[in-house]
């Protein structure tokens, strides 16, 4: 169970403000990518984010491009999870594939503010804040295996090894 500080944003946070297109083909190193996370939405984020912090947002988080850096840059910045009212489809897949938990929990979103502390209990499917405990629905079976393996690369690696045996 991890505690982290909340960074709260609104609806429709798109991939371009999470990770600008001008960097997508020339920034490849994790630390560099982390330095530009959320650059066009909140320039103070990358400088101040701490490992274990949580991004909380409204509906349709991650809409727009298929660029995976929009998930990777947050993970590399130390974000432990994104809690939102809903996620754009490709973003959801990318986050899972990189091992960044994406949790749908509108109730928690409505009840926290930037700077609040948040604790996520993945095993129990619970989000705890100073104001209450909020349940989030378990992720689909198809994606739990990928998250448990630590992302799609490890998951596929294992699968490839099994087929070779």
């Amino acid at each position, binding site marked *: 169970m991890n505690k982290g500080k909340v960074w709260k944003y609104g609806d*429709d946070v*798109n*991939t*371009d*403000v999470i990770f*600008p*297109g*001008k960097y*997508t*083909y*020339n920034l*490849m190193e994790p630390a560099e990518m982390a330095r530009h996370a959320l*650059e*066009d*939405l909140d320039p103070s984020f990358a400088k101040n984010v701490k490992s274990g912090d949580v991004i909380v947002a409204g*509906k*349709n988080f991650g*809409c*727009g*491009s*298929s*660029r*995976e850096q929009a*998930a990777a840059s947050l993970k590399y910045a130390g974000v432990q999870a994104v809690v939102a009212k*809903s*996620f*754009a*489809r*490709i973003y959801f*897949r*990318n986050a899972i*594939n*990189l091992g960044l938990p994406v949790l749908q929990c509108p109730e928690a979103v409505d009840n926290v503010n930037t700077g609040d502390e948040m604790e996520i209990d993945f095993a129990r499917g619970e989000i705890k804040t100073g104001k209450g405990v909020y349940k989030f629905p378990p992720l*689909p*079976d*198809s994606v739990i295996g990928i998250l448990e393996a630590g*992302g*799609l*690369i490890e998951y*596929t*690696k294992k*699968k*490839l090894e099994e087929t070779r045996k």
Partner: protein
Amino acid sequence: MGKTFSEKILGLKAGKEVVAGEVVTVAPDYILSHDNASAIIQEFKKFGIKDVRAPEKIVIVLDHIVPAADEKYAQNHKIIREFVAEQKIPNFFDINCGVCHQVFSERGFALPGKLIVGSDSHTPSYGAFGAFSAGIGRTEAASVWATDEIWLRVPETIRIEIDGRLPRGVYAKDVILKIIGDGGSDIADYKAVEFAGKAAKKFSLASRFVLANMSAEMGAKNGYFEPDEETLAWLKGRARATFEVIKSDPDAEYKSILNYDISDLAPQLACPHTVDNVKPVTEVEGKKFHQGVIGTCTNGRLEDLEVAAKIFKGKKVHPGVRVLVLPASWEVYREALKKGTLAVLAEAGCVILNPGCGPCLGAHEGILAPGEIALSTSNRNFKGRMGSRDSEIYLASPATVAASSLAGKITDPRKYT
């Protein structure tokens, strides 16, 4: 109960009956990628295997930053070319072809009844030809290269019935902007969108492409038009493989059905900074801007360039505006060259760029400075997308961009058509 197109094709690929909501593991017919193939290669190498599973299914088109704008981009392209040679990937299209979605279609990969995934969010474009196509990320693309399979959730379908007749000066782009403005950028999140109705059936394939391409801006997994005679005629001589037309059953179950009569539709504009912030052009008329962009995978086909050329013919771009023209592919470029369309645009003072993504994603060829405003036929107007985070982007049809570029301010194109 009948089935939708998406249920039928995913069921066929999975080898069982499926309904919306189920998750299936399937082998796609094609996997598209572009300049981000270099990042996919980097991920692929982590698997510890030597060869891709099915090289003939991989299609790579260099389009995002072509020709390479600096050494890093050049290195990316080099990595891709070397990998293509080493893996014997037969379907590689270098910098002289065009935007991946246009090239993929022109070269006959976008076929009815094919299952296509692509590491680009506008992969749903191929629904214009009756294919099932969805965007994925680069790690996922690497995994598909290695395993030849992917998990997909069978989507629910929203059917959009478009009836009536397009008024003069109003185009497919206005129709899709209106739909996105009404429904919002997540109206179709995780869902399929099927475009139907009498007016939709009359749309040219280039116009259908505009709608399928921009279904991504409604959050859709895939867009779809039922193939008809026009589709089959266009595919003749282009199709790379045999194919089977798959259609929704008449009694298929839809999540919702939306009805549009476009007979009274006015030209539309997506205002900064979201694609669903849509207003009629008349409400924003008079707004000055600095850069017009005509082209990209959304509106860079011959019919788009011809609409613009008709408006520009014999006139000059306003001195306060610069106009960039990006044909969607070199096939389009050559046709427009032969027909004299490019000559009209060049004589009007437009800058004709090479086919490619250009400034659409803010990487090169026309970046915006702080305080600058673009009026573009592309598909996204997110903050900072075309350059500075203090710039703005308005999205519109080629006619609106052309008319406005003559006037030096946002202008209703019906005055010029």
